[in-house]
């Protein structure tokens, strides 16, 4: 085993240790805290790159398992593993996180809780990397929960804002609903396979023996055990990755600082759900015959519906970060769809490209917000193209990548998902949903860019006096670096040279232009047309006639006011939850309260009264019969104690004297008894 596999645990432990140290620092040690966080993550990046290079040379899966807890004769074991999937995620997470840490230096420079912020960020990085390298579902779950915790802490970082505190709570509770499913799935998996190790020399729960047994074991309604467990685990992934119907927390999570939105709620943590599905893929895909398993079918549909629904809602939003949040939800839907219809490589490719361009979009948004004095409403921006040229250029690249404009990163990865969906044997529904989603993506991103960067400047009254400025270098350099990746990263996975896919799946690689078959070319052309149509319509509606006043109704609102308002209100999904789930639980609570007050309280009162009567009788007996006896006894004790306390006179020498006498007496007794 290579040393990098043996010491792979250092990658998550370094940032976690940095977080622990920062937690002990005083709030005023800002520079030290930032140095620790960035330095530890830099080391992690270095190790991740070494690990990546190692898997390039030896793509086989390697792992190291250790004993952890003992139950009777059984050992619970944990470990870490290194395979191409892990290596790619490690590099992506450490790299993006490092850039965002650096960016935070500028963004959070004036925050009084700067040190705490870096503590949380470093803890997050450690936990996320732990999720990535875990070779045990239990360990993964623990890191997963720590990730959830840091997400909660960071969303609520500005906890004095009531919306932020509420959003943090909402995120925590909604993801917990999904995690309950994950937990049940984990228990079931342990029951079914007897281990939670993923790979363990043939005995792991993702290896052939266990998976085949679970796939052959039917449960109910035509589900196999493997699919049922897979669906429970998917609940957790759906909660974390914001899939319908658990997506409601992610847009609200934008109340956190923007670097947090970029790191956690766009690039890494929300991708953890996708990663989890990719990690559990052998289990998800297991069937006895051929064809896709029922778990994958469900995931494909959920992903496609999420992709479309979130794209729709994004059209009607006015908050720059909320648009991006719904866009993230939509893209996560694509990733799930890609995993389900095309396999690990397809979904993961989109995950990686998305991480770069979405982080870039969020950081760009942060730069805009920072430059516009904390303004987040796109209606009050406008005309920033000239004022913030670097932000504009990088944002435009990211926007084109997200839309899937030909040759940008998103084009290749999204096209591959659509291609796989097109070839899916079950139904062509997800393909059409995805295609419409792609059109909407292009449309809402064009709308956003037109609002923010084009037309005249339309400042809100409260910010009108403050000048707009380009952000400092610590903020723009990460933007520039990320934009290079957003533009070019797609070329590692083109159909003609699918390096990324073959790396993940361990196939050999060859440059093959024959891969551009007629069907694929036509699909590419179609998707390019869809994207360009989306951009063109967006430009026609929002760009060609400059938006001059912030109060003007939206171009779509003029055509379809009711529908647009519904989009703006996020299709009333939160209200629906209010009326269904929350109202139901409130009803239950009221019912229980009524039962408490009248049924249980009555019983308790009855018991209380009878107790009081008995105790009254008891007190009579106490006062007259028992007290007299005890009084006499305690007086005697007190007198005895007073007598003995004479010896305790506080003079150390007296004690020593008693010791000496006792020694002599004891020795004499001892000698006498021996003599006698």
């Amino acid at each position, binding site marked *: 085993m290579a040393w990098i596999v043996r010491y792979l645990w250092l990658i998550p432990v370094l940032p976690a240790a940095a977080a622990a140290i920062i937690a002990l620092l005083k709030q005023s040690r800002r520079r030290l805290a930032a140095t620790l966080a960035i330095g530890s993550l830099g080391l992690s990046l270095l190790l991740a790159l070494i690990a990546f290079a190692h898997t390039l040379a030896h793509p086989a899966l390697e792992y190291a398992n250790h004993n952890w807890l003992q139950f009777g004769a059984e050992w619970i074991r944990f470990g870490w593993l290194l395979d191409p999937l892990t290596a790619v995620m490690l590099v992506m997470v450490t790299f993006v996180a490092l850039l965002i840490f650096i960016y935070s230096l500028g963004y959070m420079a004036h925050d009084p809780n700067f040190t705490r912020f870096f503590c949380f960020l470093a803890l997050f990085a450690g936990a996320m990397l732990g999720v990535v390298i875990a070779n045990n579902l239990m360990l993964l779950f623990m890191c997963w929960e720590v990730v959830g915790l840091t997400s909660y802490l960071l969303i609520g970082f500005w906890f004095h804002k009531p919306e932020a505190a509420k959003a943090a709570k909402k995120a925590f509770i909604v993801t917990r609903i999904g995690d309950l499913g994950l937990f049940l799935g984990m228990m079931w998996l342990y029951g079914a396979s007897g281990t939670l190790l993923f790979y363990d020399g043939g005995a792991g729960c993702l290896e052939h023996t266990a998976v085949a047994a679970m796939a052959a074991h039917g449960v109910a309604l035509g589900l196999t055990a493997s699919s049922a467990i897979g669906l429970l685990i998917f609940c957790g992934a759906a909660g974390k990755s914001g899939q319908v119907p658990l997506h409601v927390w992610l847009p609200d999570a934008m109340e956190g600082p923007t670097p947090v939105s970029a790191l956690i709620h766009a690039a890494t943590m929300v991708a953890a759900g996708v990663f989890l599905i990719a990690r559990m893929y052998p289990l998800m895909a297991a069937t006895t015959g051929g064809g896709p398993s029922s778990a994958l079918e469900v995931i494909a549909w959920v992903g496609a519906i999420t992709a479309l629904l979130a794209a729709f809602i994004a059209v009607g939003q006015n908050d720059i970060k909320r648009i991006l949040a719904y866009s993230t939800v939509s893209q996560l839907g694509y990733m799930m769809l890609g995993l389900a219809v095309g396999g690990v490589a397809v979904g993961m490719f989109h995950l990686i490209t998305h991480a770069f361009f979405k982080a870039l979009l969020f950081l760009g948004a942060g730069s805009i917000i920072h430059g516009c004095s904390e303004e987040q409403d796109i209606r009050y921006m406008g005309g920033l193209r000239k004022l913030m040229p670097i932000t504009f250029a990088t944002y435009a690249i990211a926007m084109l990548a997200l839309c899937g404009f030909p040759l940008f990163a998103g084009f290749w990865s999204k096209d591959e998902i659509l291609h796989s969906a097109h070839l899916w044997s079950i139904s062509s529904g997800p393909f059409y949903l995805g295609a419409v989603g792609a059109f909407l993506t292009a449309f809402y991103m064009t709308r956003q860019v037109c609002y923010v960067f084009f037309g005249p400047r339309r400042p809100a009254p409260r910010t009108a006096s403050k000048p707009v400025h380009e952000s400092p270098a610590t903020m723009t350099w990460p933007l520039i670096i990320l934009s290079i990746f957003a533009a070019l990263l797609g070329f590692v996975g083109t159909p003609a040279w699918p390096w990324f896919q073959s790396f993940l799946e361990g196939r050999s690689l060859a440059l093959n232009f024959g891969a551009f078959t007629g069907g694929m070319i036509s699909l590419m052309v179609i998707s390019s047309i869809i994207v360009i149509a989306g951009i063109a319509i967006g430009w026609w509606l929002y760009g060609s006639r400059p938006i001059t006043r912030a109060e003007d109704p939206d171009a779509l609102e003029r055509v379809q006011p009711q529908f647009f308002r519904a989009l703006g209100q996020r299709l009333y999904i939160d209200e629906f939850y209010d009326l269904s789930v929350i109202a139901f639980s409130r009803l239950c609570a009221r019912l229980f309260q009524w039962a408490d007050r009248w049924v249980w309280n009555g019983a308790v009162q009855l018991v209380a009264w009878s107790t009081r009567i008995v105790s009254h009788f008891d007190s009579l007996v106490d006062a007259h019969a028992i007290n007299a006896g005890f009084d006499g006894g305690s007086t005697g004790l007190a007198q005895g104690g007073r007598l003995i306390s004479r010896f305790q006179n506080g003079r150390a*020498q007296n004690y020593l*004297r008693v010791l*000496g*006498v006792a*020694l*002599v007496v004891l*020795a*004499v007794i001892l*000698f006498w008894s021996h003599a006698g």
Partner: protein
Amino acid sequence: MTVPFLILAAITLAGAVAAMTLRKLVHCALALAVSLVGLAGLYLDLGAQFVGLAQVLVYVGAVVILIVFAILLTRGDEPPSPRVGRAVGGVVISACVFAVLAWAIVSGGAAQGASAASLAPISDIGHAMMSRYILPLEVVGLLLTAALIGAVVIAMEEKRRTK
């Protein structure tokens, strides 16, 4: 029972008796130093060179100095004792203890005569300290540190709470 041994024993005991009976505290401390030096001589005579030198360094060099400082800082001699019975009681008890001990020594031990004189080379002690007794050594180091800090804290002037 060599002559040097007897002389050293006499010095030690005389110093000890002086330390326990003299009236001025500073004289007592100096008598203690004499007694400890005598004891160090006994150690050397018995072949334990390292212990003898450590005895001089630690006791005469540090503990006695410490005691002298304490005497100076508390600046007070013992007030003349009003009760003689007290001192007599102490002496009687200690005499009894000595009697018991001596009885035990004389009756108990047909002790072995001296084996071939084997000095303890300092290098052997060093090896033993650093290998077999490394853990106790570390613990003693910790104890000394704790005692140092503790002594400073105890003897430190208490902060006045009232303003």
